[in-house]
């Protein structure tokens, strides 16, 4: 079982100043929310681009595969 310290650490002038400065903050999350949306949008563009490249390369690979029966027909 932990005991409460009998003499808690005295707050220094530095601690008080820090608390005063922190108290002056006026939070505004909207610009950050905007940045999250921008990142999301850029991420989805990149994702779309990557899927398009993968799709095209698959299509190309498919085109390269020649049907052996067609080959023999073309020779004839």
């Amino acid at each position, binding site marked *: 079982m932990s005991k409460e310290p009998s003499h808690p650490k005295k707050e220094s002038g530095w601690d008080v100043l820090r*608390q005063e400065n922190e108290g002056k903050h006026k939070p505004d999350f909207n610009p950050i929310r905007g940045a*999250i949306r921008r990142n999301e949008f850029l991420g989805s563009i990149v994702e779309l681009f990557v899927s398009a490249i993968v799709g095209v390369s698959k299509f190309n690979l498919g085109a390269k595969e020649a049907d052996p029966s067609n080959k023999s027909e073309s020779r004839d």
Partner: protein
Amino acid sequence: MLLSLHLALQALGFSDMEDTELVELYLVSRGDRYFGELYRRYSPKVYGKCITMLNNEAEAADAVQDIFEKVLLRIGSFRQDSKFGTWLFTITNNYCIDLLRKRKRLRGKVGAMPEVDIEDVVEESDWLQDQSPAAIRHILDNLSELDRAALVLMYMDEMSVKEIAVQMGLQESATKMRLKRARQRAKKIYDVWNTGQKAYA
């Protein structure tokens, strides 16, 4: 599993959640409410740090936005073995010190701040630790940028010389010298201020 955790937590709210859980959930869902909770927890502390270091309210408010945008971009590289707060304050300190260096470069080598002659000041090691908030504010307002940063890291963040050296990108010996000189300049500023206070009283 994360999805069920996400749904359960939506009902409960975020106050009991660990920072690392919020980071994980943000990375999985990209939901701004998780990042918003981290912002709610830490933005006053980041602002407090910025205003102490930069000594300018408008710059500090801009710095908070910039720092959280940086965090947003780098959050994927956050390693869960360290605390989120520690990671965030490292980014904050780096940001402020970079800005102070830029300011110093813009002002030139001499700088707009009056350089205090330190030769006749005898160093007293811990006098600065025990000063009132008003005295500390006066000292910080009148010190040069990098002296202020060094003293804030030492007295407000209670960092060791080694940690300050890493944070400021200096050798340990150079950091010790900067701290010594910063304390001496602070003493000179304090003595002038204190004499004025006594005369006024």
